[in-house]
């Protein structure tokens, strides 16, 4: 009878060798492709930003192209809107500030991540330039129940967030009449109340964390700009 250690190696040497070879191959693939994949993910995120800040009517039939930190929105009329994106981090959240080239911020988009029914939900929330209302919602990734919870990615659910006040937390309700009765109410998805609540909780937490800091930064910047203007007179 072989000693246990010798038996172990004689039995498993092929698996150990394959593990090393395949592991090395995967490291090489990961090292080479990671930058490309990260660039794809960033471009995909940036492509969503105009839809989260600009009114839907302005984007009807528009073609959006991303190049570095610039987003070009080519409208159906042929007119092109050139947008600049500034990325920063506020209160632990990734913040995208969208501005027309050389102009004041048109709005902000904040990334929020939180627990859903099945796994984390990663989403983008649009905030108006005056920080008074939400301007849109986009779910970047989720693993909610197919055909039930994953309806959070679709327009009928997302529309409840567009135009909702950013000054008070959103409330999930279960009847359409109640949802229509006042802004800031979100109609829960049928058979997916937990997913609906999760999205609202993530949005509420994200806005509550980011909005005061953005407001403070905006009010600090306002006198400075005023002073510069006065000094120029």
């Amino acid at each position, binding site marked *: 009878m072989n000693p246990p250690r010798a038996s172990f190696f004689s*039995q*498993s040497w*092929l*698996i150990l060798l*394959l*593990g090393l070879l*395949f592991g090395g*191959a*995967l490291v090489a*693939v*990961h090292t080479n*492709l990671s930058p*490309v*994949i990260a660039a*794809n*993910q960033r471009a*995909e995120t940036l492509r969503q930003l105009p839809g989260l800040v600009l009114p839907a009517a302005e984007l009807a039939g528009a073609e959006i192209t991303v190049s570095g930190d610039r987003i070009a929105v080519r409208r159906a009329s042929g007119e092109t809107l050139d947008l600049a994106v500034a990325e920063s981090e506020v209160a632990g959240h990734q913040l995208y500030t969208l501005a027309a080239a050389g102009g004041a911020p048109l709005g902000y988009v904040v990334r929020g991540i939180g627990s859903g029914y099945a796994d984390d939900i990663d989403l983008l929330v649009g905030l108006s330039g005056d920080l008074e209302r939400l301007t849109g919602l986009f779910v970047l990734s989720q*693993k909610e129940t*197919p*055909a039930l919870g994953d309806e959070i990615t679709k327009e009928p659910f997302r529309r409840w967030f567009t135009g909702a006040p950013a000054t008070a937390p959103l409330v999930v309700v279960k009847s359409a009449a109640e949802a229509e009765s006042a802004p800031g109410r979100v109609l829960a998805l049928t058979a997916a109340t937990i997913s609906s609540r999760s999205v609202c909780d993530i949005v509420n937490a994200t806005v509550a964390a980011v909005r005061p800091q953005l407001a403070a930064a905006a009010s600090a910047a306002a006198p400075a700009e005023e002073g510069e203007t006065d000094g120029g007179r």
Partner: protein
Amino acid sequence: MAVAELELPAAVDDGPTAAERFIAGILPENPTFRQLLGMCPTLAVTAAMKPALTMVAATAFVLISANVMVSLIRHLLKPHLRILVFTLTIATFVTIADRLLAAYLYPMSVALGPYVPLIIVNCIIIARCEVCGSKQGPFTAFADAAGNSLGFLIGLGSVATVREILGMGTWFGLPVLPAVVPRWVIMVMPPGAFIALALLLALVNWYQARPKRRAEV
């Protein structure tokens, strides 16, 4: 029983030839319609042709790579560890396929979601490694995998064709039905996958039974 007694029989190319393997995988032993293997992607990603063909391409890459790799190391396989080796090999190539899709076909990678990593548990691949890769040479293993990939293409392509045309009036996103023809929205929803597969299976079974009936008459 001593381990030595469990060694695989000498792996010699005494099975079907490469051409026979190739042809068998396309229609006579079609993985979708004759063996009913790989049902998860057949039902899940066939709402339209583009995601279906991307899934076929990813599965073909894994199937061919894993079958040839297993064939190359077939003399080293121990019978009781072979499934472990198959799984390790398949998982490696699936991860490579997943990363390649995310890098060069990002929108399709997002659209297919978890179904690309799920190729690891696709029964077609492990079945071919067991039936052919672990017993015959690399050329025959390649032909076998290529034939089964074509068979899988026929399976997914036919289900996706039925679903996309009836459900959206398009094929590869191009309109093929006039606007006046009503769309069967159910066909692009999960029940539509079962309906389309059942109808196609019935058609294949009816076609297969025809010569037998004629002979009986």
